[in-house]
């Protein structure tokens, strides 16, 4: 269990910095650090077991149906990475306390940092690859926040966006690759997948899976050609760069290469893809790094180069190379984090990180200079530091690796990379710290407070100690991790500073001499470099992004241009094309069912429906007529439902028709009453052809379905309604019980829709839209009868009757046609009548309940019914029913689903009324008339009111 806690701690702790920043920066940093210390301590508890070769596991089922389990496991590789992430994370937290200025929001920084830390630990400890993907995406998102932390800097925002696009895009490929991998292995658990290497490599899906996963790894680990985002991410604060680019973010891709090594490595494809990419990236980035004038830019490209080195080692596919890769991960993390931190100190103290403006800092900042130069020497691969050992191991592996039958290619390229590497590392030391002190630093530099240089000092101490005593310090960890990477195929591995007179030593000497010579003649080299081509990745990326945006805009604006006609045309045309494609490929047999005789009255109804449709088509430009036609069609549809024995649907349709007509007329008030003629003749022909084709297609489809026997699930519901749901009305039992969860979702959607209508129209009641509305003059004649007495009296008499019908329909719904939805509509109509008769203002004043509260209450009641079942130990929304004997009434059946139905009822009333009332408010603003005080124009009970009759 404590394993899951290691992952969860940073996430939980992410809440602390934001709260504790109020108590000061020290409290904030201390709290953040203690979270990491705690996680690190938990990790250390497991360390002895892991070093003995055990695998610690913990977890629980999350979504077992999808194969997604929250399983974590800790082996040597996980221990190595988790240790780096938490250990260097701790140093970064201390360092950042001194690095961030008073103006930077420190709580935010630490919150982002802990989120990122949690995501990284999650990646390296996940046993389930789906879980790993979740954490993988979280690292992309949280690193986006970290890189863009200085949101006032355009470079920071752009760098963050670029990192997100590249790594997030790779993450998409990774998802596809992981899903394929899980399919092939038959499980999404890593511990299972790792044992099915042969089965996976034999599968035809191996190649696509490998390519997709490699895209994910290479984008994350900044391998060519995806390397360009990393230098641009340097716009982040230095602690972020130090953390992301030494130990964590970019190592995630490497981690995955190592994790999946037993499954994916060892094939020719793997070697040529991974080793070649790694080697090329190593040489290219090392070359670029040498000529970067920005201190962090140099380190960025050197990071890319070292990532290439590790990728190359994993790509070789031999266990020894993988072990060397694991060792170099440790070494690179230590010296690179130290280098980033000292670069941050130099930047902080001198005010610049432009190398030509620096130099001679050794005399002014001796501590920083010592730390930086030791770390740089390790990066250059100079003995006796740790970078030397792993670089020797790399050169040793490269020395006897042929590439496509060329034995000299790989050693030569590796040596060239090493030459550049020595050159840029020496340049970091020489051009910044050596030479005479200058007089023109932007700020007068001196060594900073101890807290600032202690974190890099710890790392530099590690650099030296691991370099001097590799076997005693790093040996067990490297062996445990390499064992985990290679799946136990590792031969005897011992780490020595001195390997004897090997070819690798020769290559090292060549690299040192070559690098020193290159730096000695830096001016010439720089001139040659300047003369060469410089493809600027950012311009290409920006151009590519602009083209992508333009393309998607073109597609969106073509398909989604705001004209409903076009949407309909596109949808119908695709339906017709797809339907025809399916139709043409099938046998066209007539149905086998006997057709029924037409009931003559039904024929008449059909005629009326057709007449309504004809009216709508013929007079669609006169919008009022179109509404009339639609209500005829609606009426006929309702009767059709009845005729086909669906009384529930009929009741719903009848009520919906009323509400719809009122709503459409309310809206039509503000709209042109005629649709202008805009379509050209050709377009009308096109639309006509489409309409006929689609209509004939749908008609034919209905004919085909209705003339065939088919099996449905209705029988099951019919049988189960009474025993399972306790109601005789199957439709209602399905709605509130069998498919209760769907209904629950639907009423939430309904409520949201009503609130959205409210919010959108609220915008029309304020600001420029309100002024426009107030200036608007209606285009309809106005009769004098505003609130005629007849209507007021009629609706008042109807109100109690209608409410009673509503309650009746609600209560009987479980056994007879009816239910909460219909009842809600009925009650809404009863209320709308009052609004229509006596005006919005008058009725709204007498309505004591807020409609938005009604929506919320309904959803809560329905939800509470579901939760009640959970309290009883059943799944959400399990219904219970029982029979109670009431005096005088007799046997009464009570089902919990009825309470649920009450929730539906309340939501429907709230949603319908909220939407209608809000549209009516618009009308009130636009009417330019005083709101009525009395319920009607002429109120016989108060004769004085007659004088106030409004003659407009």
């Amino acid at each position, binding site marked *: 269990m404590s394993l899951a806690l290691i992952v969860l701690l940073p996430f939980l702790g992410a809440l602390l910095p934001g709260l504790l920043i109020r108590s000061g920066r020290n409290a904030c940093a201390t709290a953040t650090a203690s979270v990491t210390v705690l996680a690190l301590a938990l990790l250390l508890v497991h360390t002895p077991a892991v070093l003995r070769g055990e695998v610690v596991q913990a977890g629980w089922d999350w979504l077992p149906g999808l194969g997604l389990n929250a399983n974590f496991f800790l082996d040597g590789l996980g221990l190595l990475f988790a240790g780096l992430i938490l250990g260097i994370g701790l140093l970064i937290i201390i360092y950042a306390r001194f690095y961030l200025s008073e103006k930077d929001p420190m709580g935010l920084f630490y919150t982002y940092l802990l989120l990122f830390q949690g995501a990284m630990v999650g990646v390296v400890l996940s046993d389930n690859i789906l879980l790993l993907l979740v954490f993988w995406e979280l690292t992309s998102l949280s690193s986006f926040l970290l890189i863009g932390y200085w949101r006032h800097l355009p470079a920071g925002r752009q760098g963050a966006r670029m990192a997100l696009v590249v790594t997030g895009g790779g993450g998409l490929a990774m998802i596809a690759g992981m899903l394929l991998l899980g399919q092939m292995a038959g499980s999404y658990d890593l511990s299972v997948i790792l044992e099915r290497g042969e089965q996976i490599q034999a599968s035809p899906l191996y190649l696509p899976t490998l390519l997709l996963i490699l895209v994910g790894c290479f984008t994350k680990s900044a391998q060519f050609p995806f390397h360009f985002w990393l230098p641009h991410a340097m716009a982040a604060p230095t602690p972020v760069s130090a953390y992301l680019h030494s130990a964590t973010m970019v190592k995630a891709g490497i981690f995955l290469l190592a994790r999946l090594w037993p499954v994916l490595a060892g094939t020719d494809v793997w070697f040529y893809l991974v080793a070649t990419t790694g080697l090329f990236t190593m040489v290219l980035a090392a070359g670029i790094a040498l000529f970067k004038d920005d201190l962090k830019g140099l380190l960025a490209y050197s990071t890319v180069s070292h990532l290439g080195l590790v990728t190359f080692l994993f790509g070789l596919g031999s266990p020894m190379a993988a072990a060397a890769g694991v060792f170099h991960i440790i070494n690179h993390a230590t010296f690179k984090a130290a280098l980033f931190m000292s670069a941050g100190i130099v930047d902080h103290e001198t005010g610049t990180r432009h190398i030509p403006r620096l130099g001679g800092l050794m005399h002014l900042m001796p501590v920083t200079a010592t730390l930086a130069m030791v770390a740089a020497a390790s990066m250059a691969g100079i003995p006796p530091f740790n970078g030397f050992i792993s670089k020797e191991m790399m050169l040793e592996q490269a020395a006897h690796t042929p590439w496509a039958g060329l034995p000299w290619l790989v050693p030569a390229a590796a040596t060239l990379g090493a030459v550049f590497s020595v050159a840029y590392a020496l340049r970091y030391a020489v051009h910044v710290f050596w030479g005479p002190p200058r007089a023109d630093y932007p700020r007068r530099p001196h060594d900073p407070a101890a807290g600032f240089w202690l974190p890099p000092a710890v790392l530099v101490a590690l650099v030296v100690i691991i370099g001097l005593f590799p076997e005693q310090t790093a040996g067990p960890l490297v062996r445990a991790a390499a064992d985990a990477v290679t799946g136990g195929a590792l031969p005897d591995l011992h780490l020595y500073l001195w390997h004897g007179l090997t070819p690798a030593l020769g290559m090292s000497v060549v690299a040192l001499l070559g690098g020193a010579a290159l730096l000695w003649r830096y001016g010439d080299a720089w001139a040659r470099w300047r003369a060469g081509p410089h493809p600027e990745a950012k311009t290409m990326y920006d151009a590519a992004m602009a083209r992508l945006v333009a393309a998607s805009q073109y597609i969106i604006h073509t398909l989604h241009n705001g004209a409903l006609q076009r949407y309909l045309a596109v949808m119908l045309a695709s339906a017709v094309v797809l339907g025809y494609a399916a139709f043409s490929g099938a046998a066209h047999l007539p149905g086998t069912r006997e057709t029924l005789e037409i009931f*003559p*009255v039904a024929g*008449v109804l059909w*005629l*009326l429906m057709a007449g*309504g449709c*004809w*009216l709508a088509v013929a007079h669609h430009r006169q919008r*009022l*007529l179109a*509404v*009339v036609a639609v*209500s005829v069609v609606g*009426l006929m549809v*309702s*009767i059709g439902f*009845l*005729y086909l024995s669906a*009384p529930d649907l*009929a*009741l719903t349709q*009848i*009520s919906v*028709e*009323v509400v719809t*007509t*009122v709503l459409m*007329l*309310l809206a*039509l*008030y503000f709209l042109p009453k005629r649709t202008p003629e805009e379509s050209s003749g050709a377009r009308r022909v096109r639309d006509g052809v489409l309409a006929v084709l689609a209509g004939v297609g749908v008609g034919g489809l209905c004919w085909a379905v209705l003339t065939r026997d088919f099996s449905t699930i209705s029988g099951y519901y019919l049988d189960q309604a009474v025993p399972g749901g306790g109601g005789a009305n199957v439709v209602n039992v399905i709605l509130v019980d069998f498919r209760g969860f769907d209904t629950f979702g639907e009423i939430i959607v309904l409520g949201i829709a009503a609130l959205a209508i409210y919010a959108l129209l609220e915008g029309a009641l304020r600001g420029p839209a309100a002024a426009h509305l107030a200036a608007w003059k*209606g*285009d*309809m*004649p*106005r*009769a004098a*009868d*505003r*609130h005629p007495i007849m*209507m007021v009296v009629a609706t008042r008499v109807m109100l109690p*009757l209608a409410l009673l*019908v509503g309650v009746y*329909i609600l209560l009987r719904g479980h056994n*007879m*046609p*009816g239910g909460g939805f219909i009842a809600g509509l*009925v009650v809404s*109509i009863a209320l709308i*009548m009052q609004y*229509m008769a006596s*005006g*919005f203002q008058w009725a709204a004043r007498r309505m004591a309940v807020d409609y938005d509260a009604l929506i919320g209450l309904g959803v809560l009641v329905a939800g509470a019914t579901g939760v009640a079942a959970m309290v009883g130990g059943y799944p959400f929304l399990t219904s219970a029913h029982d029979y109670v004997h009431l005096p005088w009434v007799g046997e009464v059946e009570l089902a919990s689903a009825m309470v649920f139905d009450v929730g539906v009822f309340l939501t429907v009333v709230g949603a319908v009324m909220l939407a*209608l009332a809000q*549209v*009516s408010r618009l*009308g*009130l603003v636009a*009417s330019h*008339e005083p709101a009525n005080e009395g319920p009607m124009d002429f109120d016989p009970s108060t004769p004085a009111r007659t004088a106030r009759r409004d003659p407009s």
Partner: protein
Amino acid sequence: MIEYALIFGFVAVSLALVMNLWRLLQGPSVVDRVLAVDTMVINTIALIILQGMYQGTTLYFEAALLLAMFGFISTVAFCRFLLRGNVIE
């Protein structure tokens, strides 16, 4: 006996509906058509009751009740629209 009465009722109501349709399509004014719809609703109520008697069930009764109770609302809404423009003032 009731069968004959029902058949007569069906024929009469159907004829009335066809005539409603004639008025609906013919117009000429919008008010004519709205009136046609309103009468259609009345005839439909009759039809539902007849059908219920024909099949010997009370299951359709509520539909007739709802139409009778609310059928006029649409008509009133159309009228208010024609007279005042705004349905709910």
